[in-house]
């Protein structure tokens, strides 16, 4: 089956997938509405996400948590079905804790990613929908891990394209922590501005060798109104300019 991602993609891709594989008809086409992002820089790993849980057009929860801490040095960004993500995050946390107790050291981020991937493998081809990005700091080095999931091309449509272009523009290794924070925030804000399925607030986590720190959840509504004021001001400027030609 040939997948071409259109700009109004999410439901349609899931539907085509479903036609091939589903046994139980879904009550509604599941839409994967979210914006999550993470990047590495010299000061550690920065992870940010919006907080809107959508359910085919309805905002099911405006204050959900998409960045779930797994242990002191590892957080997981989740997108896909919130229920599946919450479950698998708990399962992963349990497995990692057991590993730590048995072996006396924490599992590395890439190890955790491999573990999650293998745990999800039996569900490949089912309607399970989990796309997780693990961001962590192991030992002396950062290691954001990416797990592969039941749904083949998940990585592409979960990560918001609106955020990608801003990250591409601004992210480089040498960012300071404040610059990184502001880029992450801007990227999530721009995605929520254009994407109907992302919105409400932005969560930010910063992972360093000392563990993760969480920034206060910020409501993007304020930012939106600030920008609207600015544009309104511009519009009045614009009306003053005479089109004399």
């Amino acid at each position, binding site marked *: 089956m040939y997948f071409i991602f259109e700009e109004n993609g999410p439901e349609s891709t899931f539907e085509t997938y479903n036609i091939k594989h589903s046994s139980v008809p879904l009550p509604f086409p599941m839409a994967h509405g979210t914006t999550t992002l993470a990047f590495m820089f010299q000061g550690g790993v920065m992870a940010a996400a919006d907080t809107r849980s959508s359910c085919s057009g309805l905002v099911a929860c405006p204050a959900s948590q998409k960045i779930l801490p797994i242990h002191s040095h590892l957080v997981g960004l989740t997108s896909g079905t919130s229920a599946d993500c919450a479950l698998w995050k708990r399962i992963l946390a349990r497995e990692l804790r057991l590993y730590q107790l048995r072996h006396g050291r924490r599992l590395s981020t890439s190890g955790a990613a491999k573990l999650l991937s293998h745990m999800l493998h039996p569900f490949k081809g089912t309607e399970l929908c989990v796309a997780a990005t693990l961001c962590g700091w192991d030992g002396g080095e950062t290691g954001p891990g990416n797990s592969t999931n039941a749904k083949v091309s998940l990585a592409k449509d979960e990560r918001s394209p609106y955020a990608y272009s801003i990250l591409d523009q601004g992210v480089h290794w040498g960012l300071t922590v404040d610059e990184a924070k502001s880029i992450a925030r801007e990227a999530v804000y721009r995605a929520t*501005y254009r994407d109907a399925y992302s919105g409400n607030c932005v969560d930010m986590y910063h992972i360093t060798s000392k563990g993760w720190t969480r920034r206060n959840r910020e409501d993007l509504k304020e930012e939106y109104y600030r920008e609207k004021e600015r544009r309104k001001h511009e519009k009045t400027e614009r009306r003053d300019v005479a089109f004399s030609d």
Partner: protein
Amino acid sequence: MALEDVCSFKERPVQHKWFSFSSLGDAAIPFPTSDCYNLRYSRLETSENNCGVPLHFFIPPLPHSSSFINRPLSSFCPPKNSMTVQKPFRLAHGTTTLGFIFQGGVIAAADTRASAGGLVACPAVHKITPIHSHLVVTSSGSGADCMLWERILIREIRLYQLRHGHRLSIRATAKLLSSMLHPFKGTEMCVALTLCGWDKSGPKLIYVCSDGARLQGDVFSVGSGSPYAYGVLDRELRWSLSKGEAISLAREAVFRATHRDAYSGNNVDLFHITAQGWSQRKREDLKEEYYRDKEKKGKKKNDKLK
């Protein structure tokens, strides 16, 4: 126009009915053109050349219906429930085009990749076409359909100008285009055009698509790469940009989109429209920009590590 010869205009008798949207379900729907001569029967008998004749389209015979020649000539509106030829791949607007208005006029930018499924059919396509000296149109959707409709639009605008002595406004052009596309709504025709121009009322940017949408705005980006372009544009677009800043913003937006979107790429075309007309910037290969960007990031990494 060569198109008319291909469509064998002169061989067919002409039929007309008053065009009204309410009668769209009926058989005969002549093409509305800017040509008001069409609407009067008396004129038609005397017209020798094609100047009085509305555009007819050759619609290839459909598998289940009788041959085209036997079909009543007035019903050239493609029947909506007919079986059509299997598409080789799903049409997605695999492109990045954008346009925005700022204090110095209108900027229109687009990539140059034409894709067919997963193949790059042509790496050097013109997605921005000038219609007249103060109007360009960026196209996305099916390449063939867009090329055809651009030519038709050029023809109609030119005819209007010759008959009435003044250029049609951009809003009227958009309306004309939209009503010409309307009979094909629901068929597989896939055309999404952004008219970028300057007329008596200043700079204008109007998006017209074959689904029937006709939207005027300050910034539009169309195609599979549009979300990527929107991110960059939303961030930095201001009314008060200088010309150089606007050009580099448009270029950056297309570059970021081509970087992430598989169906956009190769070069970037840029047009700047002012009250004096349009001017085209030299086509630029984004490969160079990619390497420059990579080097810049690598340099920053080295600087910080020192």
